[in-house]
């Protein structure tokens, strides 16, 4: 179970961190304002500072309302588990796509997600995985000639 208060504080911390990274990024830029106006780093610096200030204020507001917010459940155990079961395979697909290409990753992901996370029969999962991948291949590579990421398998089959 995830309570609203913790999520508010956690996300505000992330935003603060983004601001901090941005601030670090402006270190080697000219952040000044000369006679021809603001320099390259002027706005990045201000935006970073605004991010840090605003996220700190959001966190402060959340803390001031902590009694009410800690009673609000934003993610229940069951729903959260569903999100993870759905989300982690997506990460897997992106990881696999980096070295095996999008088509293979896509087919494997669909197969896995429909068979295991979705609990469908093998035939259904296989059919959707192969069908969607094939349609995507035809639409992108043949009809619109937009090449997608390919890996060793496509090269081996002479499709790359």
């Amino acid at each position: 179970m995830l309570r609203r208060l913790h999520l508010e504080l956690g996300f505000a911390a992330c935003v603060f961190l983004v601001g901090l990274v941005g601030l670090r990024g402006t270190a080697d830029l000219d952040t000044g304002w000369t006679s021809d106006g603001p320099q390259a780093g002027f706005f990045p610096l201000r935006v970073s500072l605004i991010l840090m200030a605003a996220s700190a204020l959001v966190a402060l507001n959340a803390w001031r309302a902590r009694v009410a917010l800690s009673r609000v459940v934003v993610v229940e155990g069951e729903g959260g588990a569903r999100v993870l079961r759905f989300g982690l395979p997506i990460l897997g697909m992106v990881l696999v796509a980096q070295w095996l290409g999008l088509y293979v990753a896509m087919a494997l992901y669909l197969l896995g997600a429909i068979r295991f996370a979705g609990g469908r029969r093998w035939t259904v999962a296989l059919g959707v995985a192969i069908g969607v991948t094939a349609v995507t291949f035809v639409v992108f590579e043949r009809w619109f000639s937009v090449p997608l990421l390919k890996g060793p398998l496509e090269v081996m089959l002479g499709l790359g």
Partner: protein
Amino acid sequence: MLSNLDALMHGFSVALTAHHLLLMVAGVLLGILVGVLPGLGAPNGVTLLLPLTFSMDPVSAIILLTSLYWGALFGGSTTSILFNIPGEPSSVATTFDGYPMARQGRASEALTYAFVSAGIGALVGIVVITLLSSAVASFALRFGPPEYFAVYLLAFASFIAFGGGAPLKTIVSLALGFGFGMMGMDTVSGSMRLTFDIPELIRGISFLVVVIGLFGLGELLLTIEEGPEFKGASGRLDPRGMLRALASMPRYWVAVLRGSAVGVWMGITPGGPTAASFMSYGLARRTSRNGVRFGQGEPEGVIAPETADHAAGTSAMLPMLSLGIPGSATSAVMLGGLMIWGLNPGPMLFIEQRDFVWGMIASMYLGNVIGVILALATVPLFAAMLSVSFSIIGPVIVTVCLVGAYTVAGAPFDLWLAVAFGVAGYLMKKLDYPLAPLVLAMVIGDKAEDAFRQSMLMSSGSLGVLWSNPLVGTLSTIAALFLLWPLASALLGWRRTSKAMRLAPPEPGA
């Protein structure tokens, strides 16, 4: 005015070809599909289709994309009413009364009310565009960098003042958008900014990838969390219910008028369709004679948000065309498309690209009429499609989103970005951070910065140029007032209007 009518007729001659009509039908159908499927909405539907339009001529491309937008707006209402699942964020308010009507067996009526009032709202928005756009554009021709900056500032400021979210969270969204938009090469000085010596970041972060993550993957995660299966009313349409709804439609002219006005206003100022539909629903509930019955299946509670939703969706094209400033997340994506097709959004479009501008405006009339008809005709089809289990549709949508993210630039790195923004979108939705400002800031943030820095070059670094003539002075002053609005209203404790708009999000399953 009369010259506009001439131009519109010319536009119809551009739009009324078999090829373009076919594109409209295809766009509307794709749009309804995208609108019906949770996780795919208007902004990322347009984003996903965009790479496929690069080889088209701009008129055909914009007709396809805008038709998809109208279709998505219609399709979002179908699922809201039948399944209590808003297919689009902007049709959340439609669930409040639409779903109760469907549960009472009045789904046909509710859908007819929704589509017809949406069509009327859209038409009002388009009429406003027809009448005003060229006037706004010729007015904007006199704009220099300071005026442009002031208008951009006004756009951002009105998000903070009227966007409907907590002002502080809107600021976070805007600032995140500005920050991501700044990454890569600085257009004025040519130096690299915020790239942290990572080669993938040199071309910056594409807002299209961000849209796919925030609106696509993020929305999917939310849907899956609420429960994987659709349970809803039957999609069978009853002609008698439809006729009954059509016959009683004129009784609700006040709601239609009010909704259109709210929608047009929210579309032109970048509040967007989502804020418009909530605001219109809230207003209707407070001012209508039937106010007490809202939430229990009151037709006016369907008509009010739907009219405003579509009026805002269409009128958001006015600032996009004539000023180059998008009024919603979707029109922000289209603005990006315009630039990719080699067009320069803004007032010069009306002089240099008359075919494009008026062809698009004419296609909006046709596209929405086609939309109403197709939306009604395909309800049974799409309702049946949703009975396919989400355990199959969900993963397929994921692959569509990721493939779309890859096609934006052909970069494997963008897949990681899309996933990261998907998680961010999920969390931001959970915490009521508005997403549209982030996209808007990414799209026009660097244009705003360029305009500002050019103004500063003109004035040797003095801010006085923003008040150097009555026009820019007025714009800057209004923008400054909007920026101070949340502070002022907080001080006055005058938050009732924004409370009505923050009615979202609904309880799952309520």
